[in-house]
């Protein structure tokens, strides 16, 4: 008791700021083992898978069919790990939010930041920022190692669109991270959040193929993963949006999810 009494008067009263809320989110992110494991998995996915695919492309070059060789791009090969990495980043993005709801931590978070929005903003900034930095490094490593492994079939960063595609990897994954956080705040449940995210990212493009042919051009290019694919690819699929319009559409999905999430966070009982 004396501890409390003695400290009552001299303790400085500091207010909550957005920066402090973000710092709190940083501590939360790095103090969970699952964050480290999942981030590590995404790094391994981008670098490991990129190198592995590049290696097999090189070693099985003679078996490649002519049309395959025509579609081959050394940059895209070395960055192929992004498809796996988005699973790790997406799951972690949802979990960063829903993990708080499933454990009740969200109540502590919202009691310490009762305006609530700084919690969402802090999570988004910290998680997206970490993703960008980590994936930027991973993409460069994957590219450089991949080109080494591709040997004579490899290229350099000076190749057309190569640098843009490499930087496109962290850009795409960062927006996926934001999209996942937004969905987490909307759904608030881990299983539901992950299902929603990957339903939109991975399942919707396949289902879209079943639409009437005349509808497809109005739907398929605007699905988040299709729209965002251009930014990390040298070769883009015909019928898809141009690189930066597509990226803008992906960003719009993420912004929409965050806005709805923010609205619901303010409105709903915790």
């Amino acid at each position, binding site marked *: 008791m004396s501890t*409390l009494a003695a*400290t009552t008067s001299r303790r400085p009263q500091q207010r*909550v700021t957005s920066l402090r809320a973000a710092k*709190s989110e940083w501590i*939360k992110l790095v103090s969970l083992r699952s964050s480290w494991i999942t981030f590590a998995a995404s790094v391994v996915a981008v670098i490991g898978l990129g190198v592995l695919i590049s290696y097999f492309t090189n070693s099985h070059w003679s078996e490649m069919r002519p049309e395959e060789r025509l579609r081959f791009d050394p940059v895209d090969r070395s960055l192929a790990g992004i498809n796996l990495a988005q699973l790790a980043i997406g799951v972690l993005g949802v979990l960063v939010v829903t993990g708080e709801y499933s454990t009740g931590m969200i109540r*502590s978070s919202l009691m310490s930041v009762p305006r609530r929005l700084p919690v969402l903003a802090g999570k988004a900034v910290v998680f997206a920022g970490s993703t960008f930095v980590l994936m930027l490094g991973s993409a460069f490593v994957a590219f450089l190692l991949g080109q080494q492994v591709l040997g004579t079939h490899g290229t350099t960063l000076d190749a057309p669109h190569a640098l843009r595609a490499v930087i496109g990897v962290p850009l795409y994954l960062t927006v996926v991270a934001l999209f996942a956080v937004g969905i987490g705040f909307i759904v608030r449940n881990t299983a539901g959040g992950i299902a929603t995210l990957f339903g939109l990212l991975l399942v919707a493009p396949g289902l879209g193929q079943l639409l009437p042919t005349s509808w497809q051009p109005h739907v398929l290019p605007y699905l988040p993963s299709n729209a965002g694919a251009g930014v990390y690819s040298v070769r883009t699929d015909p019928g898809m949006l141009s690189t930066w319009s597509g990226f803008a559409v992906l960003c719009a999905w993420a912004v929409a999810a965050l806005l709805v999430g923010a609205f619901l966070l303010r409105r709903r009982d915790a």
Partner: protein
Amino acid sequence: MIEARGLTKQYGDKVAVDGLSFTVRPGVVTGFLGPNGAGKSTTMRMILGLDRPSAGSVTVNGRHYAELSAPLHEVGALLEARAVHTSRSAYNHLRALAATHGISRRRVDEVIDLVGLTDVARKRAGGFSLGMGQRLGIATALLGDPPTVVLDEPVNGLDPEGIRWVRDLLKGLAAEGRTVFVSSHLMSEMALTAEHVIVVGRGRLIADTSVEEIIREASVNAVLVRSPDAAQLRAALAGPDVTVSSTEADVLQVTGLSAAQIGDTARGLDIALHELTPQRASLEEAFMTMTRDDVEYHGHLAGEAADTDAPALEGQGA
């Protein structure tokens, strides 16, 4: 100071809290009592800005919780449901919350030490026992050294030593002039801790009074007297508003006279007294009497159930 005015919370058709108005004052421990399902936790969640009232309002030190610029320095809270990420250590949990207010690591160590969790502070909170979880919750509540603390069932899961520790802690906090608001469904625990109680049942206010007052109202004001000369004393005590009953030869049950009056009378007649005990109804009994009609979930005896069900069945007639 916590002030609720017409506080109401509705979930669909169900009214969890129904027009509650009360004031929790600083300097004393105020108990918040009610059977399970009475709306205590919902009320506390509204105080802490987690749930939005359907009607009415509640303020802490004159302001809504959501408007507080440094809430941890104003109100410390422990909620009944755990509010800790199970995979994070107690230390990191507190450090993350402290960071929102720029509270130092030294203070984090201080509260960990205060609640006696120093040895396990670096371990996953998910592995904590219920009692350790409660201690971590109390550490969280005290982190910002707040003048107001709101605790939902703080002694839940604590061992007797822990219960006593919480009791002393709460009294100490109140003695320092803080506002202490503690919920419980155990009247006996509140009797030892609180000076003032707010009693609710089915979301409505049943009583807002001092513990003393409740005991006084509940007690039958009987005095138990044991004396070798019981018969002689009985005759001497007889009076218009006095009733005396006896179950044993040397025991009297007196109502209408205070223990002092009986003692004086006995001394005047030179009668020896072997016992002179004011009989008070226990707080538990008082509480049961008060909330009998407002208990959400009754345990029925077989006979009772049959009685109440029978007319309903006849009435249906289909």
